[in-house]
């Protein structure tokens, strides 16, 4: 049983990766100690005790340094919360709740994946969907697996974390909507092209916008490739209490709750 902490941490680094993408690193040793790839953290972005914004904001762990007691989140500024988060200064306090949710199931834990000598793993990221993949890739590479990453974004300048993921030893294929014409501009087209080219994988993980996830699900289903998805849904508590973060179940009626049943789910479990 993971234990969830509501911890007052300290911001120890603020990085500006592109004009709209930022990384914030927080020293919060109790949260960092138990964080796993694919889990997330709820961050209070405004001043302590401020009601604006009211809710905490969910972000995937983008870096986890359990020993150093720190973690990072990688995000795009889209509204009030992220705008405040990027402006918090190094040295300031910041309250966070985590680690939350179920992370990625690694191949050795996974039953869905067929036996393979050296399983080959595929990561598919759209936009900020890249955020949780660095810790996942690190774990996969540590287990000696071969990892490929298909990574799509609007602009090539939006391709955050690309260099670092390459440096882990991943095969990285990128596409952006800028290079229309030349090669696939959408990551789902890139995925189809890769599979059509004969590349074979034993397990896939995808993270990105809803529409992209649903397209990736279709392609993987056709090629019988087991797929885990990291979902997003509007959240309040992050704890399974408010029942606000519902996501339709695929088989039985009713809903999963992204904060506790996810954010990582097997693609066949959900309707997208």
């Amino acid at each position, binding site marked *: 049983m993971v*234990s*969830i902490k*509501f911890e007052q941490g300290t911001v120890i680094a603020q990085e500006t990766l592109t004009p709209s993408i930022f990384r914030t690193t927080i020293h919060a040793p109790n949260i960092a100690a138990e964080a796993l790839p694919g889990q997330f953290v709820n961050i*209070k972005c405004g001043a302590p005790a401020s*009601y*604006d*914004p*009211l*809710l*905490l904001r969910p972000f995937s762990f983008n870096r986890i340094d359990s020993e150093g007691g720190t973690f990072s989140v990688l995000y795009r500024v889209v509204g009030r919360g992220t705008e405040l988060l990027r402006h918090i200064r190094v040295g300031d306090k910041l309250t966070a*709740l985590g680690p939350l949710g179920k992370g990625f199931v690694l191949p050795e834990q996974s039953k869905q994946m067929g036996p393979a000598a050296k399983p080959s793993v595929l990561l598919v990221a759209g936009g900020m969907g890249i955020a949780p993949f660095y810790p996942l890739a690190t774990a996969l590479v540590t287990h000696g697996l071969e990892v490929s990453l298909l990574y799509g974004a609007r602009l090539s300048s939006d391709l955050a974390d690309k260099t670092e993921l390459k440096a882990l030893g991943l095969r990285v294929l990128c596409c952006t909507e800028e290079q229309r014409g030349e090669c696939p501009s959408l990551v789902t087209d890139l995925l189809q092209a890769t599979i059509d080219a004969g590349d074979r994988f034993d397990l896939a993980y995808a993270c990105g916008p809803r529409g992209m996830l649903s397209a990736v699900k279709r392609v993987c289903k056709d090629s019988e490739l087991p797929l885990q998805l990291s979902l997003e*849904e*509007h*959240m*309040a*508590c992050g*704890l*399974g*209490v*408010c*029942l*606000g*973060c*519902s996501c*339709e179940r695929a088989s039985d*009626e*009713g*809903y999963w709750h992204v904060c506790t049943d996810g954010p990582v789910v097997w693609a066949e479990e959900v309707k997208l």
Partner: protein
Amino acid sequence: MSEKLTTALCGMSLSSPVLSASGCYGYGREFDKFYDLRLLGAVVVKGITLRPRHGNAGRRLVETPAGLINSIGLENPGVEGFIAEELPFLREKGVPVIVNISGNTAEEYSELARRLDGVPGVSMLEVNISCPNVKQGGMAFGATCESAAGVTRLVRRHTALPLTVKLSPNVTDIASIAKSVEEEGADCISLINTLLGMAIDVDTKRPVLNNTFGGLSGPAVKPIALRMVWQVAGAVSVPIIGMGGISSWQDAAEFILAGALCVAVGTANLLNPYAIPEICIGLEEYVTRQGASSIRELVGSARA
């Protein structure tokens, strides 16, 4: 907690006047990991219906200025599921349990009351005639004196448990509704449930919620909730469980001074898992600073 916060509600001895508000505390499991549930006067559980409900489709939450609109739609395991799967945990924790019940018809309410009557571990029923998130019934029962009284009368007949009736704030005259449920045997009044609100997405040009409307809660509604508690406290003689936007001990104190015997904390739990213990500590210090020996001495004291 010291004696300063202990109180008595409808024959129950409570360790503090601070309760959880229904739907913002699940069945207590998650908060039990953060602190001892016996800090609470009682756990008011997520609303229960006769049969299990999946809840509403589509997006369920919208943040608003200092507020939250929800459209959960009473997702719950049904009364049998609750009794079998959730109640034993709370019973074991030794905290009084108030079961929040909702029905589509008056008969469903009374059937729920009958079913919960005498079930060990259930201390009280909270009759939710004010849920804005279900199509039939729900809030409609709380909209007029007649329908509110009707549900109360029927439920009253089917249980010996103490009853609190949870009122809707979306009405012209909440004091009259409180009086009519008091006359039908309500032992207590809970208020407020959420205010009906909505949001529109200016990009898609559509309401954000599938049901168009949802229920607004959180700090934004506190001034309205406090006013309604004040009005109801002037109209009835049964105790009041006050709620709506309570996020700090000061907020809780305002409701108590206005005449609430107990307060319930809802949305604040979703923002800070320690909201309730922090409020309890603050209230206890407040009692001491006021030179009172018990929070009970402060109930209604702004009305003098």
